[in-house]
């Protein structure tokens, strides 16, 4: 993976892949918020990094000046031809609805939302619980585990595979591709390996399901009509790829960060075990404090925003994680209060691009924590073992050795 030059001026030359930012972005955001609340960099591409809740949510709602056509935090080759290395349907729409503006956004999002409604998500609970228990069966008696790679990482990918109607045998490969695309986006070879693998796999699945339709999302999209016309294959491919890319790293990171918090805060372990009714509020608080996802927007025309001269084509990194740590919006944001009752967090974004899978993510996080705490009520970090964090578009632990 390419090395980044260490950052010395976070306000004018930030880098979200700097190891300090990956390991502890919180103090950097605090410093910026009080000195230069919207930072800038020319690394990779001219980009802005807001850190205040009000700025982040205002930009999220201003879809006229801030388009979602390019949402990658690590831009890679996003200005190139998406079909250059892919001999298949037209990929010019990217991954709708996340990488689109209205009107494409509106109708593609409407196709996707029912798959993640709270009623539908309730039907995935037994599967998720069973997955968690099966994983715990494998290590709960051994006294130690990698809570990230051995547990958190294994759960969402299998639920998503079920929704897409594809084999869970592919889970490890899916995880590899998604990490190539998101976590290793700065490495052109890995990024391309992930994108090609994933697109060619889903292209095969599309052709198979066209003739062998099932009850899954891809089959349903192939049969759906919008205004009397079938949906373009490139759009179906984009939606399927989106569900996988957005549904794996993100939730796995939230589960891993939450377990890291509990491993380092025994008082919160005890409290959750003693007061299980706190779980819905606690899940929201953990999502606030350790929001995994930063998305990007692209500036559509030169605009001055909050004193910053943003140019057409600049990126804005939608720093939802920093917004959720803004003392103007949250009382003592640095403290995790499991029963925080005033919590308008934007871990799932804000405005029309609110994460379409938020009900699923919330359910998976809650079930994963409930099952872990039921089986392993007391645990801590394994002394002498390194923890590895990943960052950029999605922040969370990749290696998290714990003992119990």
């Amino acid at each position, binding site marked *: 993976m390419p090395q980044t030059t260490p950052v010395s001026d976070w306000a004018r030359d930030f880098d979200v892949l700097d190891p300090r930012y990956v390991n502890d972005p919180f103090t950097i955001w605090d410093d910026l918020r009080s000195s230069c609340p919207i930072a800038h960099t020319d690394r990779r591409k001219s980009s802005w990094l807001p850190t205040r809740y009000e700025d982040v949510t205002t930009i999220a709602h201003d879809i006229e000046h801030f388009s979602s056509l390019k949402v990658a935090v690590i831009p890679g080759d996003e200005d190139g031809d998406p079909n250059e290395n892919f001999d298949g349907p037209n990929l010019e729409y990217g991954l709708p609805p996340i990488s689109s503006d209205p009107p494409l956004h509106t109708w593609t999002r409407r196709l996707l939302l*029912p798959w993640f409604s*709270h009623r539908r998500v309730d039907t995935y609970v037994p599967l998720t619980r069973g997955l968690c228990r099966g994983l715990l069966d494998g290590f709960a008696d051994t006294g130690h585990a990698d809570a990230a790679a051995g547990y958190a990482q294994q759960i969402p990918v299998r639920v998503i595979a079920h929704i897409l109607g594809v084999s869970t045998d592919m889970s490890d490969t899916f995880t590899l591709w998604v990490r190539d695309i998101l976590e290793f986006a700065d490495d052109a070879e890995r990024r391309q390996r992930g994108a090609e693998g994933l697109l060619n796999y889903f292209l095969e699945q599309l052709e198979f399901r066209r003739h062998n339709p099932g009850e899954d999302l891809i089959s349903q999209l192939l049969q759906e009509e919008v205004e009397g016309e079938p949906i373009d294959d490139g759009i179906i491919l984009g939606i399927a790829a989106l569900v996988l890319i957005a549904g794996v790293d993100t939730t796995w990171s939230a589960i891993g960060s939450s377990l890291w918090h509990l491993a380092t805060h025994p008082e919160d372990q005890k409290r959750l075990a003693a007061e299980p009714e706190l779980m819905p509020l606690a899940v929201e608080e953990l999502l606030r404090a350790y929001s995994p996802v930063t998305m990007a927007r692209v500036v559509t025309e030169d605009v001055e925003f909050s004193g910053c001269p943003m140019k057409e084509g600049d990126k804005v990194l939608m720093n939802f994680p920093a917004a959720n740590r803004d003392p103007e919006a949250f009382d003592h944001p640095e403290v995790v209060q499991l029963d925080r009752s005033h919590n308008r967090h934007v871990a799932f974004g*804000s405005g029309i691009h609110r994460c379409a899978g938020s009900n699923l993510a*919330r359910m998976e996080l809650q079930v994963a924590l409930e099952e872990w705490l039921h089986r392993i009520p007391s645990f801590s970090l394994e002394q002498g073992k390194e923890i590895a964090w990943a960052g950029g578009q999605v922040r969370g632990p990749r290696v998290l050795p714990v003992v119990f």
Partner: protein
Amino acid sequence: MRIRVDPDKCQGHARCYGLSPELFDVDDYGQASVIVDEVPEELEDKARLAVANCPEYAIEILSE
């Protein structure tokens, strides 16, 4: 107490349903709505909880 969800502001975060399912529902497309005419007195705190957790400021208390 009477409460309302502003359909133009609601983006389907479903925080209201998650915390106070006795008072709210969210449809398959992410639109939240209030399912009671009048909030029972014992649920007024839950209504206030929903207001204080909506990221879109979409829930209003109409009368107390």
